[in-house]
């Protein structure tokens, strides 16, 4: 069982490395300031929530595998799996995973609190996306460092009244 989990995380990481890395390597703030790649401008609320969560930390890109569809047919119901590569020991574990949307009316989608008892830092849920945008995942580590992942999702039909 643990082997299978490791493989699935690895394959998703490979996917992230190959597909999304080129995108995420551009610093978030640079794109927020009007790079042509940004089709949906990050909302002011997103910027505020992001700044508050990050605080004085400098989030490092990597170690987070986010499974989201490239294109969401129905923005009301978008499955998401988040896995953070962490030993989940007392000395080194993920304490929180924050899920943010850059262009929903409410930027802060969810926060998940974890501890070593979870053994594997992975959560699954379903989220709403009002329109095509970046989904940002932040992971807070027990040592105080933060990780970040950015995933662009094309939304065909936006979540109604999100």
């Amino acid at each position, binding site marked *: *069982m*643990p082997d299978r*989990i490791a493989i699935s995380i690895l394959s998703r990481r490979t996917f992230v490395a190959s597909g999304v890395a080129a995108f995420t390597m551009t610093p978030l703030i640079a794109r927020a300031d009007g790079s042509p790649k940004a089709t949906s401008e990050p909302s002011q609320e997103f910027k505020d929530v992001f700044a508050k969560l990050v605080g004085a930390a400098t989030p490092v890109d990597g170690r987070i595998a986010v499974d989201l569809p490239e294109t969401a047919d129905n923005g*009301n*119901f*978008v499955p998401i799996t988040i896995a953070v590569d962490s030993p989940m020991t007392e000395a080194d574990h993920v304490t929180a995973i924050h*899920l943010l*949307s850059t262009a*929903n*009316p*409410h930027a*802060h*989608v*969810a*926060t*998940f*609190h*974890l*501890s070593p*008892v*979870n*053994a*594997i*830092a*992975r*959560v*699954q*849920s*379903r*989220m*709403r996306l009002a329109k095509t945008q970046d989904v940002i995942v932040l992971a807070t580590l027990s040592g105080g460092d933060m990780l970040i992942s950015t995933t662009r999702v094309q939304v065909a039909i936006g979540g*109604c*009244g*999100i």
Partner: protein
Amino acid sequence: MGRNPRIKLPDTIKAGEVIEVKTVITHVMETGNRHDKNGQRIPRDIINTFIAKFEGHEVFRAEFGPGISANPYLAFEMRVPGPGTMEITWIDDHGASITATAPVNVA
């Protein structure tokens, strides 16, 4: 408040094994941004807190915003130390809560 809360656990679990706990509850997760046909804003009504306990000890917690879909589904991982009871509580904007329990049967 929500209804029909469900917890899904593997059928067979060994002590020390890491399992996935799958949960879902029926709830509209009204965002507060929608309007009815008379133009009146429909008030926000969401489940904002999720707490999972095993044998009385908190093992996982989540806060939800309106960006979580209706009938919120949540799955997380947990190492099972031994047999016991999983207890999950959902709390809504009005402070109302609903709790479901499931036995963790260790072979």
